[in-house]
């Protein structure tokens, strides 16, 4: 995406956000316009444009909502028992995603999914704290990672592991 398109898409997004924040009050644009422009420049500086696959994103949202719902149920199930049902473990998973936003994104997602919490994501490995050591964490993380990679238009199939 070239700079101009990128710039105007961000202006559009921040303008929409401003409208939502002020409930569409027209006179607020006196402050809104400078704010939108500032936010656009800061966001370009802090988060340069990342290729995102639209189809990947559309597929990811229901996947995420469903699994984070399961994450909540999973906790509820464990705490309402008379005896707390957990057998925690630490688990190291070797990244296939490259360094950067996609890794941070996946770590956040994993922390909301059932039974997994991202502890450390620097370096070669993603370190996970898991509530249940009887599940195949590696397989689970691989499938999440694949979906994240699709969304960020990254090909991880060739990465050796």
């Amino acid at each position, binding site marked *: 995406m070239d700079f101009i398109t990128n710039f105007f898409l961000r202006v559009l997004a921040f303008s929409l956000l401003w409208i939502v924040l002020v*409930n569409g009050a027209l006179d607020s644009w006196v402050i809104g316009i400078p704010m939108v422009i500032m936010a656009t420049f800061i966001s370009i500086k802090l988060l340069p444009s990342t290729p995102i696959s639209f189809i990947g994103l559309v597929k990811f949202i229901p996947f995420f909502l469903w699994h*984070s719902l399961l994450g909540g149920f999973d906790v*509820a199930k464990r*705490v309402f028992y008379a005896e707390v049902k*957990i057998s925690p473990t630490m688990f190291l998973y070797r990244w296939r995603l490259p360094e950067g936003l996609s890794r941070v994104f996946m770590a956040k997602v994993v*922390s909301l999914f059932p039974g997994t*919490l991202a502890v450390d*994501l620097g370096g070669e490995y993603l370190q996970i*704290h898991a509530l249940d050591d009887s599940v195949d964490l590696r397989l689970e993380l691989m499938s999440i990672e694949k979906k994240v990679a699709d969304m960020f238009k990254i090909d991880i199939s060739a990465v050796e592991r």
Partner: protein
Amino acid sequence: MIIDVISAFFILLGALFFLAGTLGLLRFPDVYTRLHALTKSDNVGLGLIIIGLMLQVDSWLVAAKLLFIWFLVLLAGAGVAHLIASTAQKRGLKPWKK
């Protein structure tokens, strides 16, 4: 009327998840397991409460604002959980073992 009932249902269900998160905070044995409980169930609890509230609003602007609040809490919750977990580990806190 029916809307009110559905909306109340979602809000109460959401409250139940907050209860689960709080119970987890009290009952789980160490910082890592407690983080699991808080982040995951509070995220679902807030999501359900937001759905319940969205059924009550009469402008899409307010609905969008509610959704945006949920999104921000989601980001903050997951991020803070990770920061606390990694700090705990750097300080040498060992995870509880069965």
